[in-house]
């Protein structure tokens, strides 16, 4: 099985961390991750041509079917691009050090995602899921800035509460149904579930739903997303937004839809959640001025699209007949959008990363005029921006359009309204990406006199940016892989359509190209260069002669201000809850500490920890271990504290996993 090579590459990448030199570590490990991701793509191709594969990977039961490869494709593509990008990008964190932490965590992250979508056992699913959460948590606080650490803690605790606990409970439910850990394959659970009473189904499904909603950042569990993606190194954010969220989608389809089964109301629920999320997420993104937070909110919003599509599928497929076809189209569109979203969102994150690499900031209020110097990055960002805004002939248009089509054809007011919201939000997406592109690359500013990003980073961006156009023009290249639900889409190399509705991107591109070039030749422009017209002002700071990102849609934001206020209220409530959870954790930990460590410490909030120069609550949680490791550090000089925390975490994670598994 090719997956073994992939996992092997990832493990090797982790072991590369033993090299002490920071740069060598990150480069080598990123490269190994790149190779691993390539192997994943190979696996996809293999399965696509030869059919599903079942087997065992280091003793873990693995089944790679046509659904898995969609997600493997996503993980592979994003992994390839991000790893290539990270080779140069991770140099930025040289002052942080800890190259091997990155090496281990990043490779573990990719490997665990690959495992999540391939394992054929609930038990290992949950384990790899935990590994994924843990490794991504480590990557989030990698920069070790105060705010980033806060974000990572928030992320971790959210995941702990809303992801791990429900998943373990669901695992328990499954265990109680099947009765054996060995037989916890999805098929067995599905069979058991078919005969289970409704409330068992409801509990199992509900628990999983909470877990997956949290992971993919659905309303009302979206609060962790923005800060987490902002805090993580950009290449990691790209993987998180591009791949990790989709893994939750895999869970939704593989565990809920396939095991628990679906119904019209469940589908409606998913679709409604999707519709609400896409609205809320994107409208929040509209007012963001931090590039990474903006992208993060957009990944919430785009996940909403995907859930809407899948929801339409879940709702309509059971109905049969024409509606089933529409439902299959919706589900197909959802998957298609998942792939597209992975591509363009990762690409956008990577271009934001490239900008950050050169300018050191992602604040859209500050940035400007980079299009002049970072031409290639700018074009990649433009492609990805147009793709996410759904401008034909890029890939985003096709999947969005199919979602609208399925929504409008659904004969359901709610789903149609969802499609209307989707179309509306498409405009909002366009708005925020006009802002995203315009503020970063438009104009000319003296402030940033920078060079183009290094070749590796450009390659990373362009693998994805090129795909946005390629898939957009030739959707036939991927529809084969994506058509898991056998949607009756009418597709060949030059067109894609459903019933009488179709779009032929190839023809469109040809006509557009001929017209544009023809018109260009007819009206061939001649010009003189001059500086922008500033009304003849005496002296003006050109860098300030613009509208900053904050001011772009201020009137619109004022108009929907009550919406934002409501959202902010919810957010503060959520933050309060998280705060109390943190307190509860610390309270428990302080007793734990009291037992081990004599001096009683009154720790109630994160700030208290900061005052005591303890950066991570995990230090509190795992204090005994840390004490042990502190001693070890004295024995092994030269290794830093942060390193030990990571080791501690991984060890604890492993122990917890093993304890539960046993």
């Amino acid at each position, binding site marked *: 099985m090719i997956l073994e090579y992939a996992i092997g590459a990832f493990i090797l990448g982790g072991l590369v961390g033993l090299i002490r030199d920071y740069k060598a570590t990150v480069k080598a490990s990123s490269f190994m991750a790149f190779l691993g991701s390539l192997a994943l793509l190979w696996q996809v191709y293999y399965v696509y041509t030869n059919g599903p594969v079942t087997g065992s990977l280091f003793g873990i039961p693995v089944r790679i079917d046509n659904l898995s490869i969609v997600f493997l494709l996503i993980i592979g593509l994003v992994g390839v691009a991000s790893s290539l990008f990270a080779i140069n990008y991770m140099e930025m964190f040289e002052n942080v050090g800890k190259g091997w932490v990155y090496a281990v965590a990043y490779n573990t992250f990719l490997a665990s995602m690959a495992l999540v979508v391939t394992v054929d056992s609930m038990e290992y699913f949950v384990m790899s899921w935990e590994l994924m959460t843990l490794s991504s948590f480590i990557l989030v606080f990698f920069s070790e800035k105060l705010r980033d650490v806060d974000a990572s803690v928030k992320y971790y605790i959210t995941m702990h509460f809303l992801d791990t606990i429900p998943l373990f409970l669901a695992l328990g439910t499954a265990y109680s149904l099947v009765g054996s850990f060995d037989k916890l394959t999805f098929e067995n659970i599905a069979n058991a579930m078919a005969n289970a009473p409704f409330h068992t189904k409801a509990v199992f499904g509900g628990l999983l739903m909470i877990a997956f909603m949290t992971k993919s950042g659905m309303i009302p569990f979206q609060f962790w997303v923005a800060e987490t993606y902002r805090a993580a190194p950009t290449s990691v954010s790209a993987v998180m937004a591009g791949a990790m969220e989709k893994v939750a989608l895999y869970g939704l389809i593989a565990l809920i839809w396939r095991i628990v089964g679906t119904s019209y109301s469940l589908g409606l629920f998913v679709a409604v959640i999707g519709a609400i999320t896409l609205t809320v997420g994107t409208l929040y993104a509209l007012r963001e001025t931090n590039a990474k937070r903006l992208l993060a909110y957009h990944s919430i919003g785009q996940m909403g699209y995907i859930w809407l599509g899948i929801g339409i599928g879940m709702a309509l497929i059971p109905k049969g007949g024409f509606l089933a076809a529409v439902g299959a189209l919706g589900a197909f569109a959802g998957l298609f959008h998942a792939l597209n979203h992975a591509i363009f969102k990762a690409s956008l994150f990577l271009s934001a990363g490239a900008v950050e690499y050169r300018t050191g900031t992602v604040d859209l209020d500050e940035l400007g005029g980079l299009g002049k110097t970072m031409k290639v990055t700018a074009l990649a960002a433009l492609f990805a921006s147009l793709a996410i805004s759904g401008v034909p002939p890029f890939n985003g248009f096709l999947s969005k359009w199919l979602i609208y089509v399925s929504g409008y054809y659904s004969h359901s007011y709610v789903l149609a309204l969802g499609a209307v919201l989707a179309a509306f939000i498409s405009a909002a997406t366009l708005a925020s990406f006009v802002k995203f592109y315009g503020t970063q690359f438009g104009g000319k500013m003296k402030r940033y006199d920078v060079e183009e990003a290094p070749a590796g980073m450009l390659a990373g961006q362009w693998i994805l940016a090129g795909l946005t156009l390629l898939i957009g023009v030739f959707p036939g290249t991927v529809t084969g892989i994506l058509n898991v639900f056998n949607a009756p889409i009418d597709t060949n190399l030059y067109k894609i359509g459903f019933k009488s509705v179709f779009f032929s991107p190839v023809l469109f591109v040809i006509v557009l190209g001929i017209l544009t070039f023809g018109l260009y030749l007819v009206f061939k422009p001649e010009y003189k260069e001059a500086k922008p017209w500033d*009304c*003849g002002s005496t002296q003006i700071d050109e860098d300030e*002669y*613009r509208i900053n990102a*904050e*001011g*772009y849609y201020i009137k619109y934001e004022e108009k929907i201000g009550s919406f934002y206020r409501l959202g902010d209220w919810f957010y503060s409530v959520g933050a309060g809850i998280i705060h109390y959870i943190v307190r509860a954790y610390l309270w428990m930990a302080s007793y734990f500490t009291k037992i081990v460590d004599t001096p009683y410490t009154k720790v109630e909030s994160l700030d208290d920890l900061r005052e005591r120069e303890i950066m991570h609550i995990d230090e509190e949680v795992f204090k005994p271990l840390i004490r042990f490791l502190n001693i070890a550090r004295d024995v092994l000089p030269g290794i830093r504290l942060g390193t030990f925390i990571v080791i501690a975490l991984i060890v604890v994670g492993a122990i917890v996993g093993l304890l539960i598994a046993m």
Partner: protein
Amino acid sequence: MVTTKDLEAHFEFECRACEKGQCRKADVNVILSERKGLKEFYEAFKEHIRECKRMTYGQYQFVIDREVLPEAVLWWHNHPEFKETHLSTAVGTDERPLNGQFVYMPFLNVQVEFANEPENYYVFLRAYLPADDPSFPSVAQKLPAALWIEREVKDLLGFNPVGHPDPRRLILPEDWPEGLYPLRKDMDYRHSPMAEPKVEFKEKPEGTTLVPMGPAHMGIEEPAHFRLFVKGETIVDVDYRGFYSHRGIEKTGEGRLTYNQVLFLAERICGICGYQHSVSYAMAVERLADVEIPDRARYIRTLLLELERIHNHLLWVGIAAHLVGYDTGFMHAWRIREPVMWLVERLTGNRKQYGMNIVGGVRRDILDYRKEEILKVVKQIREETKKFLDIALNTNTFIKRAEGVGILPYKVAKAYSVLGPTARASGRRIDTRKDQAVKTATAYNEVDFKVPVYKEGDVLARVLVRMDELFESLWIVEQLIDQMPGGDIMVPIGDLPEYEEALGFTEAHRGEVVHYVMTGEKNKVYRWKVRAPTYNNLPAVPEMLKGYHVADAPLIIASIDPCYSCTERVQFVDIETGKVKVLTEAEFNELSIKYKGVF
């Protein structure tokens, strides 16, 4: 109704008989008892008042110590009874050739009672500044109306307003060297120096960006530079830089021209309110020369002033409509205005800049057969304007743009001494036509009209004030035609008395126009100070702009009916007194090439 005969009783120019600039013979107590408030002021500042005199009818002057200038100005401005008193402007004069001192003289329009001509008056507070230290305590730190005035005298005469909150350059260009003051009498006109440009602008507030509106912007008819610091569309703060169109008018008038030539120059201060300037100037000189002009001339002047007001208000409402994209309103307003232009062209010979005035009267008579024509035009305009307003004020989109935009509260209007319709739309009851003794030059005292006042203070209120005024003007024109007396149209004026000063004023359609004239030798003008209403209105515009949209900015700026060329009349090209050098075309071209970008 006061007739001209009554005027004679008030016209006692005792001071003229006195020694120049001094009033020893005149009885101070008689003067102080002539108007309400004078005595009170005299008592309050007894130790600091050196002299007091009546310059001419209704214009009183106190010579006070420079130390108490702010207190004195504020005493008048904040007088509890004279609510609508405002700081007209201030004159700085280089009187070193006469007495070795500079003069800084703010003056206020004191409104004892609205529309009570014999009671209201102008009060001049003359302060002498020593030649070696021309500084005075700044009024501007307590009264924003003085902000520009003090910056102007700082620029042009080198006075030093101590404690001025914003002592940046106002009038002179950026590359003008420090320490060179064009309006001083020893400034050589051939000396046109250049230095490194030094630009001073306000600091940008945090989180804002810059939208430079002007100098060349579609929404601003003349060069002016508004720096809008914006957050998106919302204006957070505003900086203003103007005075791009200096033409050396004051200096030219002081230098080489005789008093009658200055009149024509005065008319050319402004393209559309030229006649107001012309009448103001003529009024000032007539007061100086102590002549009474014929009734018919006063009527003709008033008629033309009102016709000018009519066509200017129509012009303004057209522009306002144009600025919000309501081009139909624009076209129709200007179409309605066109007959007035034709009428005026037939009455005077020109559509604008009538060239009608001369010191002592007017140049052309209104022939009888044209009276009928005037009445026809007035009738037509009244009907068409009513129809136009019906349509325009029922255009929802137009009202939406004008209503609640650019609000100027009464308090701010008073603090900035805002004038004219802008002030009346903010609830100030002021109108120089009724308040002050304009009867020496015009016939407003013999006609009946109302002064519309609105309290809203937004752009719509300004539109309505102007439109109400327009109808009042039509009514005035009808009355004037009806009552037009016969007789001469001008009296000759001989030589002017030397070193006398007087003020001429009219209510232009933008507000009170003030011309201060001090005569020199040989029928020349020693100091001629022009203050157009926009000079007082414009500093208040930033206050109006804050918090509104960039989209509203052109409309708000236009709503005061700004006239930059009126405001920016001053310049530095000096011509040595008494000696005239006429530039030939070639020399002129050469100079303009040499100083390209300087002027």
